[in-house]
């Protein structure tokens, strides 16, 4: 189960460029996004590249147009409280030219509204990518993705209209109360994204795009970091061994006392699936060792690291010291996240799991980002069952 997780990460990385297979126009958009994001598949790099390009465009706009500068700096919000302010000379044209351009109120409103719309879009696009990339469960809600793009535009529009008018605000509340927007979002993170969308829309609406930019940047990077380091993972989450123990026990019972009879398996499986399962179980059997003996391995050690080779040397050195035996089962490399090493381990009777982790930590140091040890108890449970059966036989 744990080994399947990196594969799903890779799938999510593909989703970072939100392009379905079909549709020529979507391919064009993908190429365009690739140009902006320098074609990198790593989320952090793509995000950095995107914001660099955005900063460049922004700089040009800020220098070219005083309207953009005002919107970005929040001057509009503060209006005229930042006195003194030089008034335009009505008789002598301004030598710089910029201030002499007296835009009509309508044109200025049209330009600022368009800037707010495109600015909001530009800031929410990377948020939607991050949403799609960092979804914990496979797949994502397309409605939420579209809402992330469209909702801030609507919020910004509403704020633009309402501005400081208390009457309009009350009217808006009245109109909105007629409609019902209730929906159930299954993931708390979805709500968080929606709130961000509202916040960005709000900031854009009151023409303080600087706040919107910072919200977008900080939110995206914090989210990517928490995703990358799996921040907040519950250590009490059930391990693979505990989750699979009961159903596998049912299947492994030699007699018909199990809840899953062979007849049901015959009906459920095709020859090909049965063959695949056989191969898998043979491989697991080979790892566990011969029948009527204790399993050769009773724990799985998972190492995450950015320095694969060096960490491998250090970890294996530590394992030689503290494990009775060990075997490197799989190495999984991930784009944008640390690589993972999976070891099958037989613990020494005298060695506690904590001692093993301490030995690895002290040997590999900061090369290893996380080290987790899952200890199976299948052997112990089987021994206990045998003892109980013998005791029952003796009693009888």
């Amino acid at each position: 189960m744990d080994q399947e997780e990196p594969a799903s990460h890779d799938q999510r990385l593909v989703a970072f460029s939100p392009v379905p297979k079909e549709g020529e126009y979507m391919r064009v958009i993908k190429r365009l996004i690739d140009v902006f994001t320098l074609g990198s598949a790593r989320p952090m790099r793509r995000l950095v590249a995107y914001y660099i390009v955005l900063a460049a465009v922004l700089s040009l706009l800020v220098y070219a147009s005083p309207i953009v500068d005002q919107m970005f700096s929040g001057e509009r919000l503060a209006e005229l409280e930042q006195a003194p302010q030089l008034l335009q000379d009505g008789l002598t044209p301004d030598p710089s030219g910029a201030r002499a351009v007296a835009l009509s109120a309508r044109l200025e409103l049209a330009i600022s509204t368009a800037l707010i719309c495109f600015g909001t879009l530009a800031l929410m696009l990377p948020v939607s990518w991050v949403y799609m990339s960092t979804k914990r469960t496979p797949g994502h809600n397309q409605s939420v993705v579209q809402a992330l793009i469209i909702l801030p535009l609507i919020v910004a529009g509403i704020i633009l209209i309402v501005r400081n008018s208390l009457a309009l605000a009350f009217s808006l509340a009245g109109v909105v109360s007629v409609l019902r927007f209730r929906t159930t979002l299954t993931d708390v993170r979805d709500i968080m994204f929606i709130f961000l969308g509202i916040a960005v829309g709000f900031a854009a609406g009151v023409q303080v795009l600087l706040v919107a930019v910072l919200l977008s940047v900080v939110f995206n990077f914090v989210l990517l970091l928490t995703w990358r380091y799996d921040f907040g993972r519950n250590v009490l989450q059930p391990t693979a061994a505990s989750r699979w123990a009961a159903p596998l026990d049912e299947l492994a019972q030699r007699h018909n006392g199990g809840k899953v009879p062979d007849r049901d398996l015959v009906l459920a499986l095709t020859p090909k699936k049965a063959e695949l399962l056989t191969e898998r179980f043979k491989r697991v059997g080979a790892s566990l060792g011969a029948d009527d003996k204790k399993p050769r391995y009773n724990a799985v050690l998972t190492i995450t690291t950015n320095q694969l080779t060096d960490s491998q040397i250090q970890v294996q050195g530590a394992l030689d010291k503290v494990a009775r035996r060990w075997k490197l089962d799989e190495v999984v490399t991930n784009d944008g996240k640390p690589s993972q090493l999976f070891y099958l381990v037989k613990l020494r009777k005298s060695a506690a799991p904590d001692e093993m982790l301490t030995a690895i930590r002290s040997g590999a140091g900061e090369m290893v980002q996380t080290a987790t040890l899952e200890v199976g108890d299948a052997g112990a449970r089987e021994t206990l069952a045998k003892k109980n059966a013998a005791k029952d036989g003796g009693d009888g």
Partner: protein
Amino acid sequence: MSPMAVAVLVLAILLTPIACRASNGNTTALADSAEVAQRETRLEQALASHDSSAASRAAVARWVLPEHLAEISGVTLTTDGRLLVHGDEKGQVTEIDYRRGVMVKQFTIGQPALQGDFEGITAVGDVLFLLASNGRLYEFQEGVNGERVDYAVHDTRLGRECEFEGLAFDPAIGSLLLACKSVGEKRLRDSLVIYRWRLQGGSGPRLSHLAVPLARVIGSNGWKDLHPSDITRDPATGNYVLIAAQEKALIELTPAGDVVFSGPLPESLEHTEGVAITSDSILILSDEAGHRPASISLYRWR
């Protein structure tokens, strides 16, 4: 590169243009101070150089006002010669350095801001009065930049008799002058009416009026009627100077009602709503936004 470094890098990249703009703003401030000095010099030269009657019809300076003053409705000079202006609907007063074209400060009347149909403003010592078209007077102190000041309301109860559009103060009689745009009283309809509202002290009725027959005021100008939009007092002569936006008229009356001057406003003005005269004889006219943005224009008065 660590993720934290990447995040810092991105923030730095995004904030660089803003920082550059801020430093550029300092440069702009320096450029502004130079521009302000040039403006002052230009105004002094313009005031000193031309003295013919033709030249006196040309503005010596004009400052374009920002959007929130598009409906500039009244102007006045404080006792120390600073220009205060206000808009039509919101109780917000702005100080403008008329010599240099700089908006100095802005303060708001009331919390929340006073709303109404404001038509004129005048200063009486340290106190300011704002006039609504229904004859209500709002009394308040001048505030600092961004301040919200308290106010008191005085109802002249002249809302039925008159639709007011202009306010001034005559220190000689200690009274506010309220210029009537549309006269409600039948017997005064053919007159230019200015109500006088004594502030305090004195004997006799608090309210009086000056009515000048329109025919005398209009003279040979060809106006069918006259709707004054503001009034001020010439500090040099004590005469009342009125403007009418609709007729584009400029009128000067003595306090006794004799017509000193009656003629058209400068042609370059579209909808003049405010008038003030400085102690050094500069006529300040404020123009509402129309085809052009709102502005205040300076002319030589004497």
